[in-house]
């Protein structure tokens, strides 16, 4: 005969559950034990309900025992279709606990994997050599990430239950927190080691991606690369005021994002070589103005302009939105016409107008739609026009003259910018010999097994 549900658990009852195992394990509604039902009821109490020390012990015991118990998960999920209020149970709590059980189904493996990743990180931090056995496989990575994701659930349980850090569940929470921190650290160590030079952008070449990545990344790296990324387009990459690598892009709204490990793994990073866009005559003029380290000063100017354009992308370009999918397909079709005909137009684009719109924050209050790569192309043009303007001013001050524009903008005025897809953008830059693909840093490979 199943036991009856009490309206509220008394202190005497809590003590009895803790003392008497048979009583605690007595089966009740839904085939759950008394300990399980009582714990779920306690977790279902309103936020301001104060949990006593004995009640806390009951919940700790319940959470620890239920980790990875998929039969209990099954029972809880079937309960979601019944009237839970009658039993003083909250639907959200039942969902959360079944999620907790499901996500802890590999909890026994998390410890070992965590140790491995911790050791890898320790070796990396202390510059100790790593061999294959310190690196993680894809399966281990997926368990590790699941563990890191659990931190949110544990944190909300801790807020409600206030369990002791020395309890079983507290110790597991500590491990989960460490997995979350390590996961973040893997990304941070990367972002600190990655230096952005002006004129850099990242892109994914859809057709050649497999081949390009295959040259550098191992099999597991390639899987991880695909799993953890979100960008499937071109983004402007620049260094913000805090010297952090930052993405400025339209996805589908204008946004700034930190350039993280997952982005780096997934994308190819290209850098425009500004010096290749300057004639030898103009290089001499630059040398006259700025002296021997003219290139360094030029890059510094260029970086400053990029910061001015891209800092606060979300606000400065608030009116911009990514082109819809059907338009992107159209721009893809333009590539199919021979000699780039689909991409060229008779009317010339006014680059000074492009410059005005970007630098004067035209899109802050005006609506517009662009392809992600068009955004990068327009910002590149605007930055170069601005750079030319500043160089001309400095030249005038020194009473010297450039032959034509100091920096030759690599994009034709006949190019239809609204159709400029990532592949097309790179093709143009390559044809002018002014772009270089950045080599992958060793940071990427160090965590993952080769085969």
């Amino acid at each position, binding site marked *: 005969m199943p036991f009856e549900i009490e309206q509220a658990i008394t202190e005497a009852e809590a003590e009895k559950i803790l003392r008497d195992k048979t009583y605690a394990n007595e089966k009740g509604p839904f085939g759950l034990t008394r300990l399980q039902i009582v714990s779920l009821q306690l977790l279902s109490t309103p936020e301001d309900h104060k949990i006593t020390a004995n009640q806390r012990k009951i919940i700790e015991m319940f959470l620890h025992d239920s980790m990875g118990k998929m039969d209990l998960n099954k029972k809880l999920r079937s309960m979601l279709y019944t009237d839970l209020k009658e039993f003083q149970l909250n639907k959200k709590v039942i969902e959360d606990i079944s999620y907790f059980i499901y996500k802890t189904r590999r909890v026994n493996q998390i410890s070992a994997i965590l140790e491995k990743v911790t050791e890898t990180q320790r070796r990396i931090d202390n510059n100790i050599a790593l061999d294959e056995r310190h690196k993680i496989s894809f399966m281990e990575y997926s368990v590790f990430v699941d563990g890191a994701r659990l931190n949110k659930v544990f944190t909300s349980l801790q807020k409600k239950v206030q369990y002791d850090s020395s309890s079983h569940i507290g110790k597991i929470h500590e491990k989960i927190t460490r997995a979350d921190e390590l996961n973040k650290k893997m990304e941070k160590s990367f972002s600190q080691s990655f230096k952005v030079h002006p004129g850099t952008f990242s892109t994914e070449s859809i057709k050649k991606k497999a081949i390009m990545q295959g040259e550098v990344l191992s*099999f597991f790296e390639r899987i991880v690369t695909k799993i953890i990324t979100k960008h499937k387009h071109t983004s402007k990459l620049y260094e913000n005021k805090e010297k952090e690598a930052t993405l400025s892009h339209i996805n589908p709204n204008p946004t700034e994002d930190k350039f993280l490990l997952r982005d780096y793994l997934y994308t190819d990073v290209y850098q425009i070589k500004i010096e290749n866009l300057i004639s030898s005559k103009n290089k001499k003029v630059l040398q006259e103005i700025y002296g021997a380290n003219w290139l360094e000063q030029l890059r510094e100017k260029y970086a400053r302009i990029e910061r001015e354009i891209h800092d606060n992308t979300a606000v400065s370009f608030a009116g911009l939105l990514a082109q819809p999918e059907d338009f992107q397909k159209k721009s893809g079709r333009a590539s199919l016409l021979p000699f780039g005909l689909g991409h060229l137009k008779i009317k010339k684009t006014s680059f000074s107008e492009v410059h005005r719109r970007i630098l004067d924050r035209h899109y802050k209050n005006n609506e517009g739609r662009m392809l992600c790569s068009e955004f990068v192309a327009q910002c590149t043009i605007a930055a170069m026009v601005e750079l030319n303007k500043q160089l001309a001013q400095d030249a005038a001050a020194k009473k010297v003259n450039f032959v034509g524009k100091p920096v030759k903008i690599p994009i034709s005025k006949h190019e239809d910018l609204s159709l400029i897809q990532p592949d097309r953008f790179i093709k143009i830059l390559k044809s002018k010999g002014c772009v270089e693909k950045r080599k992958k840093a060793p940071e990427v490979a160090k965590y993952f097994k080769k085969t």
Partner: protein
Amino acid sequence: MEDVKEKYAENLKSLARVFLHDIKDKNMPVKDSYLLIMGATQHDVSICFDKITHAIPDVFFYKRSAHVRENIKEDIVKEFVLFMAQEDITAESFDNDFSNFISFTIAELGHKYKMF
């Protein structure tokens, strides 16, 4: 709605195919990459995507922009590969684990992309 769902499932399957094609070693046949990465045959994976699609609420097929809906499909495929990397499809527990995967992934994506 059945037509829409069928198309959706086909989209997921082809995304998975492209996914595996992109990451596999040059000389490895695609069918081997299914086995190596997910421990399942292409046929098994196809059935799984049918089941996932069947469980997806209707709002996923029309709400939000086409761009967002594409992102969701990619997320489903990525999450599925991560899930399969840990699972043994022949294990008795697989059905229950898979059913958990479906409901929690839908809930998470629904929340992430403000579907509900």
